[in-house]
């Protein structure tokens, strides 16, 4: 997943232009909605109503259906995420090796619950599905960085890096 772009520093016009290019690329492809939503989220970081409306109009899909698809899949978000997205893997291997304690520690440190974003917009916390790095359990990711074989004591030091 590419780095989150924050709304204040990227030109809105530019984003919209990119969105129209994406839609153009997929128009006419069977089952285009989900690929378009993926790429739209990469442009905007999340899927605000404004974006959904454009997609609805251009792909000729009812807005309700788009909303239905977005809320069905956990990868799509209706809310902006933090600059640094923390994902703690709660797959079985990580769970057995104590991922629950890791997530508790992060919650305590940042003062947020799973699915929330810190007030300054710096960190957001998600419990993710298995990312497949089970050999390194327990694992967490911060944007593209992966931290494996974690212990509760590592958390503070890792968060300080950001």
């Amino acid at each position, binding site marked *: *997943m590419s780095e989150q772009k924050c709304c204040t520093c990227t030109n809105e016009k530019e984003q919209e232009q990119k969105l129209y290019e994406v839609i153009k690329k997929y128009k006419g492809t*069977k*089952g*285009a*909605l*989900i*690929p378009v*939503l*993926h790429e739209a989220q990469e442009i905007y970081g999340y899927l605000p109503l404004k974006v959904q409306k454009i997609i609805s109009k251009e792909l000729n899909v009812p807005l309700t*259906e788009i909303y*239905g*698809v977005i809320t*069905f*899949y*956990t*990868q*799509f978000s209706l809310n902006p995420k933090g600059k640094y997205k923390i994902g703690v893997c*709660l*797959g*079985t*291997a990580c*769970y*057995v*090796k104590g991922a629950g304690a890791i997530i508790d520690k992060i919650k305590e440190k940042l003062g947020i619950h799973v699915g929330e974003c810190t007030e300054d917009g710096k960190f957001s916390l998600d419990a*993710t*599905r*298995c*990312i*497949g*790095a*089970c*050999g*390194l*359990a327990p*694992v967490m990711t911060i944007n593209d960085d*992966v931290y*494996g074989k974690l212990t509760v004591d590592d958390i503070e030091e890792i968060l300080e890096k950001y």
Partner: protein
Amino acid sequence: MELVRSHVLVCGGTGCTSSGCEKIIKEMENQLKKNNLDKEIRVIKTGCFGLCALGPIVIVYPEGAFYSMVKPEDVQEIVEEHLLKGRIVKRLLYDETIEEDDTVKSLNEVDFYKKQMRVALRNCGVINPENIEEYIAFDGYKALGKVLTEMTPEQVIDTIKKSGLRGRGGGGFPTGLKWEFTAKAQGDQKYVACNADEGDPGAFMDRSVLEGDPHSVIEAMAIAAYAVGANQGYIYVRAEYPIAVSRLKIAIAQAKEYGLLGQNIFGTDFNFDLEIRLGAGAFVCGEETALMTSVEGHRGEPRPRPPFPAVKGLWGKPTLLNNVETYANIPMIILKGAEWFASIGTEKSKGTKVFALGGKIQNTGLVEIPMGTTLREIVEEIGGGIPNGKKFKAAQTGGPSGGCIPADLIDTPIDYDSLISIGSMMGSGGLIIMDEDTCMVDIAKFFLEFTVDESCGKCSPCRIGTKRMLEILEKITNGNGTMEDIENLEILCKNVKSSALCGLGQTAPNPILSTLRYFKDEYIAHVQDKKCPAGVCKSLLAYTIDAGLCKGCGICAKQCPVNAISGERKNPYKIDTEKCIKCGVCMEKCPFKAIFKNH
């Protein structure tokens, strides 16, 4: 082709990438240049070697030196000592490869690899997955050529049927039959699809195949398309697997460039094209009808079967859907023959199976074993046993749809039918090992939390039933359960199993049923004695300070986050169990080991 005297293989799977293999590769290239070796030694980024716990892994050929847990600062030594002077750096070798007399033994003799047999993973960790020529050099696309120029679609289907290959996604349906149904279905347009939505937590077999050998899946899908009469294919991959997606994209582009996808493949009139569709984080989309609804761009909700996808699949057309690992076996079956494949494994389960070995086991990673290998061989020999001298308690297969195998059934052979007969299932290949510190009621609760979260909500047995089951489990782990709850739980499980719409709901009760079958005493301990024998369920724990051992240093009181510990210095301290949140910090920090967890 340039000739080089040594190959340095660096694992680029997700596990090793997470442990920093990119830095190793960069440093390796720098050091080789610095020593003027970059012309005679080639660095290759491969797929997964399997021993993820020891990553990043570097193998140097022709010697076959297996370096594990390599750090960027070790690279200079490998280059200067091994590659320049020919002296293997023993301190970095995987311990198991060093013989008692200090000589280095071949990887195939190491316990982890000795009992393995690589068919689906044949090229993983061997070739560069981003280079089609390396795949071709290992007989890649030869099977497709053979099929298109020498075999009829009926002969292909016959070969797959005779091989005895069964679906590796977990269901175990005979693959050849599925191909035959799709081939015989009426329709002007047919599709082939690949299920790479590996949602089972703790499983990463399909990811490793896609990352390490994407062309084997592409080739197999083309073979399948020829056999059933399709010209368009879709690979449905989880978006959580960015490396796999990017390698697949590269592989498809290369195959098109080489004319192995597209029009008139191998100069015949066979046309086949392939598209990738990304999942978006919904476990239910691993179910075949839900997957197809999702490819079509909708909410991935399942629909009743029949009609089966072979009759009415994508956009209402006959569709063949197989799992990644199933496809990865196909080229080898075509090249080596059905008899060869059928000679591996047991009577009803042919070939090999890839497992992702994880949890409380020494060698976590990826293993491929002939069907019929016993769980004991996997745990004790390949897996290297349980760490920290703990005891093996159970193995969990099949993830949220599967069940557990208790210690007294450790000699069960791993094949489809044996696993079902003991109340578990093969599943897609997640194999999580649990030791005595794992609470089986808690594990059942963990899986139910997962299914409740992932239930799509279309049918009420799954939407409501799994929620009620979870509530009962929560009641039990909180110490408020009754014996009647256990009975109700069992009845509810059976009802949901028989009435849910799709595989997700029908198998959701399995983790409860199988733990009830083998570990009912643990449930009863939670209910009657209000105790968690493994010491996991927090509500049932009590921390106490042993007055005889306590020296009254006060460290525990200082560390306690809720001020539940009080006392006077040099006198034994006390824990107020009402206030205690059971975080365990005191026990961890006590220098005299005077604090105990009672359960």
